[in-house]
């Protein structure tokens, strides 16, 4: 069989499998991808996952179909004979096309990812001076919440509510929230799964992440950076609740923690407690 015939067969197999599988991935698998559509940022991540998986499917199939076909069609049928194949040392056309196609895919991925990222920051931590802020945050000042990580729990401080520090996190629905993530001791990472938020908590650093909540929601909070012995136990449940419910919750918290708030150090972007040092 000629090389052209082999090539045609591979292309047909690839086209058929791609046409069947790509829609399944894009329309069945990808919409269920994490972290769900609970917030604007989480939906953005689902969009990214959908596009990337949709693009990856035909690419992966091209490689798989080729290897599968080659292993079947080009196998040595006479296991005792040692017969050489044709001495083909390359093909400039194939190499050029390969280079062009992969370059285009890579450039598309980089541009697409950057555009998606710069739109609203995608829920990722972006340091003290964020460049990717959601449009809503520019129009009205967002709700500020400071996430303070320490071994081994997260606490939350509310500069807009008298600097009260709460043990758990509740957020109002349909609100843009500006999370200031910092740490008191070692590196932690604040991961609110359903919110689509992940931001490292570095001691002495203010790491800002944005999230725009939608409907009420229950979300899991995990520490995502190894932070010592009880890292595995550093988790909590948070809630996105209706605005009136949030107002009453935060009011209760303020009353409950009023004695503690008085003794707290003033609200600040970072805190430097006495470091735990090893001795000599």
């Amino acid at each position: 069989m000629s090389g052209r015939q082999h090539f045609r067969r591979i292309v047909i197999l690839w086209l058929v499998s791609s046409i069947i599988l790509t829609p399944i991935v894009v329309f069945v698998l990808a919409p269920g991808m994490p972290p769900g559509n609970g917030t604007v940022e989480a939906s953005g991540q689902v969009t990214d996952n959908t596009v990337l998986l949709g693009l990856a499917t035909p690419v992966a199939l091209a490689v798989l179909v080729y290897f599968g076909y080659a292993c079947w069609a080009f196998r040595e049928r006479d296991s005792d004979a040692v017969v050489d194949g044709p001495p083909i040392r390359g093909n400039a056309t194939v190499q050029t096309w390969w280079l062009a196609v992969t370059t285009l895919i890579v450039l598309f991925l980089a541009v697409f990812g950057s555009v998606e990222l710069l739109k609203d920051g995608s829920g990722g931590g972006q340091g003290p001076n964020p460049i990717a802020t959601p449009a809503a945050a520019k129009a009205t000042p967002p709700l500020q919440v400071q996430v303070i990580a320490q071994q081994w729990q997260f606490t939350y401080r509310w500069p807009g509510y008298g600097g009260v520090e709460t043990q758990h996190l509740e957020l109002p629905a349909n609100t843009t929230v500006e999370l200031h993530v910092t740490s008191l001791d070692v590196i932690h990472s604040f991961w609110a799964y359903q919110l689509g938020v992940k931001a490292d908590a570095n001691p002495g650093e203010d790491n800002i992440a944005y999230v725009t909540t939608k409907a009420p929601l229950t979300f899991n909070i995990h520490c995502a950076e190894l932070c010592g012995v009880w890292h595995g136990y550093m988790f909590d449940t948070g809630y996105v609740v209706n605005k009136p419910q949030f107002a009453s919750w935060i009011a209760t918290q303020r009353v409950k923690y009023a004695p503690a708030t008085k003794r707290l150090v003033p609200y600040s972007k970072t805190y430097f407690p006495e470091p735990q040092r090893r001795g000599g």
Partner: protein
Amino acid sequence: MSTIAMTTDRPPVWRRLIGFNLFMGIIGAIVGYLVGYWIGGRFTGANIAYYGPEAGQNDIAIFLGYFGGVVGFMGGLGFLNYPISRLLGHPPTLAEHESEGEGIGRYFRLCTDHKVVAMQYLVGIGVFFFIGGLNAMLIRTELLQPNTHVFGANQYLTLVGMHGSMMMGMMTSGILGPFANWVVPLMIGSRRMAFPRIESFTFWLLMAAGVVLITTIFLGGFQTGWTGYQPLGDQNTAGYDAYIGFFALVGVSMCLLGFNLIVTIITMRAPGMTWSRLPIFVWAVLATAWLMALAAPMLIAALLMGAMDRTIQTAFYVPGQGGSSYLFQNLFWVFGHPEVYIVALPGFGIVLELFPVFARKPLWGYRLAVAGMLGVALLSFFVWQHHLFVSGINADLRPFYMLSTELISLPTGFTFLCAMGTLWRGRIRFTVPMLFCLAWAFNFLWGGISGVLLSDVPSDVTTHGSFFSMAHFHYTIMGGLVFTFFAAIYYWVPKMTGFKFNERLAKIHFWSMFIAFNSTFAPLFALGFLGMPRRVVTYPTNLQGLNDWVSVSAFVLGLSMLVFLYNVVWSLVIKREPSEANPWHSKSAEWQLPTPVPVYDFERIPVFDADPYPYGVEPTGPPVVAPAGGVA
């Protein structure tokens, strides 16, 4: 060349133990450790912590103990003899340890024969590979249930840290140590490496490093994982000293191994072995060696600063005292990202080296393959901050690091294209090494695809630091490095030892390993997507089903390794069926030599007149003109 002196009468055992060998090395290590520890205790008594769980523990004494122990170990092995003799004015010599004949004793001492060092590496690294694998089994045992049931949290994290350090530290030289040391001189027509003593030095230093890591168990373990992030490390008890000592020694060993290979490949090529005739595996080794030589110093610097923080009270990593937690992350990943390509690139080389042999075709797109390897090596220095995408450092540069990370898929794609092109219309023989290479293509494909999701910042926000990234790098490192490591073992070890493997057992090993590997790591992608962070000892109860599936698969994976061990013992120790000189009908230079390969490799230095892939052309012979037409 000097003459080879063969001694025929063997002295009694006790007499043979006296001398510069492993036995004296161990004695030297114990004495050196005690001396170092004592000195450390003498002048630092005042600085011992008086409170906290580590009260009374003296980091300076521990570090000096490790230093003394390593110096004593290397001294006992005889590495100080040559420098001292040169200092005393004796003339330079090379043949001090080569002339020890064929005995088993040469494997337990400083030996400058590159083939002996390669076997030492293979066995030594193999031991640590199995210890690391055992750690993984214990990790998966703990994760059978969502709560802690076998190990405590500290024990569990120590296991995680030791597994990661063992695999990333000891297995870094997993292909370069045994196979590059053995095959590069033979492929390029050299009788030795450029620096034979340093070659042996890198091996014994690596073994010392492995032992230092294991001592962490006696010092309370460490809770940082293999990344050893600061300031968590500063806070750890003395077990972290073992981590620092281990990785610093590995760094020195890697750096020296890298330079040795670079110099060998550049300067020791036989006549006619031009750059365009260099076997592709040697190109992969060259690219990797550059990465090793340039990246390892970053790691050593980062760890040295950590050691200073812990001993003489500097504050490099102490925020609030002028230090920064970002500093260690940055330095570590400037080393750490080239490191993962140090691990992956030799695998590319093995796949592209073996495909021509088993498809009976020349390597397709030689220049593209070379460009791919050099491209990966170069780009790998410009991607490290994708490990810090959500850390808040240099957030404005994330689009750049996204681009550079995704660009790496171009040169990696070249490797795939060349592998695919080599199969095109070939006559593929499914030998065991070939099966492992084909498995590489399958595994690395998933590793690459998942890597695209991780390189895209919005997607990465969820997958970062989760089981997804863990599955990703196990697909690239275990699926990439370990599968090609076994391909290389089944391909070259018959030549190295002179004995055949049992093919039936080898095929059982391959299929059980391949299926169990995918069954273990594919569900981890799902676990990561479902929100399971890395390195946790507990997890939500609804994830138990998947975790148990993974654990059981991991145990099967462990069993498949036992099949391999059984094959090694049965084929190489008990049965010892002699292997043919060239069982694969390869045209590469190393296969044209007799089995076992003589001490000085080539009777005469060969002259090359073609690249090692003249398949399908006349004359059908190998491209080596030796020995008649060779030069001395």
